């Protein structure tokens, strides 16, 4: 997994609650058997008109917001489907972090496995960040994962929560599957104690 240590970026505001993964990438693009090229379909149905042309009033299409790496979104971001295509599409477009007041469980788990950091902030700070971006779209914030801090242009530093293990994996680029494979002896021992329960699936 790609490492994540620090990040300084402007924030693309998307002040909508409950942005579901069907909006992040619609289901009809999930017929692919690879992970590639999903950035083209990020927010597809908000981004393109019926003829497939970019809608100029959708923020992702605005020249001002190209190259931004932080998405500032409404509450409960990433609800709905478990599709990991959502964080794949977001990271392929260039996002490395999403700031919201909360994230859906499966999305958060998927994001953390793809170097996309979900940053939960208080409602007050959330409102303040939207105000800040409305006044100055060039305003930048900095994320320091090691200290779990978000630094604002006025010098304020705010702590944000991150699961300790996920943080370790992101900072060190730890491969979670590799980590589990190291515990194969424990898995074998577990299987040995549960032989009856684990073999109820054989049709007799």
């Amino acid at each position, binding site marked *: 997994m790609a490492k994540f240590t620090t990040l300084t970026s402007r924030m693309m505001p998307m*002040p*909508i*609650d*409950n942005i*579901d993964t*069907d*909006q992040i990438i*619609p*289901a*009809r693009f*999930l*017929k*692919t*058997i*690879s*992970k590639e090229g999903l950035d083209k379909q990020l927010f597809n*149905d908000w981004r393109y008109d*019926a003829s497939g042309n970019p809608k100029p009033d959708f923020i992702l299409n605005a020249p001002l917001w190209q190259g931004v790496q932080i998405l500032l979104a*409404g*509450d*409960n971001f990433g*609800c*709905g*489907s*478990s*599709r*990991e295509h959502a964080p794949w599409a977001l990271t392929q477009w260039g996002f490395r972090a999403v700031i919201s007041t*909360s*994230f*859906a*469980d*499966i999305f958060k*788990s*998927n994001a953390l*496995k*793809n170097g996309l950091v979900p940053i939960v902030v208080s409602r007050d700070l959330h409102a303040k960040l939207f105000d800040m971006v409305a006044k100055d779209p060039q305003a930048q914030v900095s994320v320091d994962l090691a200290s779990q801090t978000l630094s604002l242009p006025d010098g304020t530093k705010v702590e944000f929560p991150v*699961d300790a*293990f996920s943080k*370790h994996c992101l900072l060190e680029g730890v491969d*979670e*599957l590799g*980590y*589990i*494979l190291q*515990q*194969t002896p*424990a*898995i074998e021992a*577990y*299987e040995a104690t*549960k032989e*009856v*329960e*684990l*073999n*109820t*699936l*054989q*049709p*007799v």
Partner: protein
Amino acid sequence: MSTPRTIIEKLWDSHVVAERPGAPSLIYIDLHLVHEVTSPQAFSGLRERGLKVRRPQNTFATTDHSTPTTPRSLPIVDPIAKAQVEQLETNCREFGIPIFGFRSPKQGIVHVIGPENGLTQPGMTVVCGDSHTATHGAFGALAFGIGTSEVEMVLATQCLLQRKSKTYEVRVDGALKPGVSAKDIILALIARIGVGGGTGCVFEYRGSAISSLSMEERMTVCNMSIEGGARAGLVAPDDATYQFLAGRAFVPKGAGWDAAIQRWKELPTDEGATYDHTISIDANALEPMITFGTNPGMGIPVSGIVPDPAAISDPLERDSLTKALQYMDLQPGKPLAGQPINVVFVGSCTNSRMSDLRAAASVMKGRKVNPKVRMMVVPGSMEIKRQAEAEGLDKVFREAGADWREAGCSMCIAMNGDQLQPGEYSVSTSNRNFEGRQGKGGRTFLASPLTAAASAITGVVTDIRTLQN
């Protein structure tokens, strides 16, 4: 005496493989269900690393999401969908995983075929790369959806790294009135707590109204746990559970069955166990529910009115509701009943089982689908299709003018060509009303099979209790 535990804690405790300081628990997975959409990249990962599937005998695959519901004798027209379905079959062959493939008589929606074949059993941990995996919780299993990276981890190790969820008791007591069904219980819950209300939690549904539900109805309730934000939701096993499972293909037989029942009887929540959260719902007071907006939390009784954004103080919440009503092209303060519709869909992992089809058929019998409405009925599995045909339900639907299809996810997720046209309204028995979920620009009202069938007859959103004979 040991501390009383909930069924959620018992399931967790019995599946902890290892715990290391600073890391999540390593949890064992008893049943891994696989489908064509969220698995190809996981199998590619295994190949790149040179890994095998650790327990192919605890892994089962089927094809459902991008699978056409046209007659199985026809080829898959969409070349991309065809490649994906074939890739699953290739992957299963290569890695030795049993599969109920595209032309198998046992093919069906992954959350329908698991219970149907007795693959889903009490006390298990069940995962699938699909957020509606909580369906299997109806059997007293800890069942939850995972992403593709996790699919790869389970294929390779049969384990996942997980943090323990909070426990959330959903008590539903009383008796449902005529016209009110399991779907209305779950839609009412989500309307109350919102789509993020259960985030970080596992629901345990209990109480007299839950105990009196059939296994199929319990599956409908558990299925939509994720729409309330909970990754899993379950019902403790009881006699109804054992009766449903007895004799199914993959359950233990003979002495193995008796031993299994003894183990399963230990699962229900102990007297005196406590939960992190509790909510109580009065089943007697429930009405048929329907959604009006663009997430499953935007639900009202079918006799109710569309809420007004002006009444909401939080600006983001207000804007979200305004945006939803714009997308749905609905006026606040107006009743939803009477709203003209274009399509009715009966199907999906939420409501495509025999009792759902029987409920819809009971309304359709001797009646005609309104000429302005296209109605599609999609059984959850090929086994259900055969059983429904043996009961003559297909005839009822066809004679009413509905389209009777082959098994699959179909218009719930609109990946297979079954979809709404832009601007069309549907009453759908599925689980999600997100923008474009049933086709780009399509507008979805989620409801029960009874409400869907009644609306198909009249051509407008209809309260089943008002449908005249």
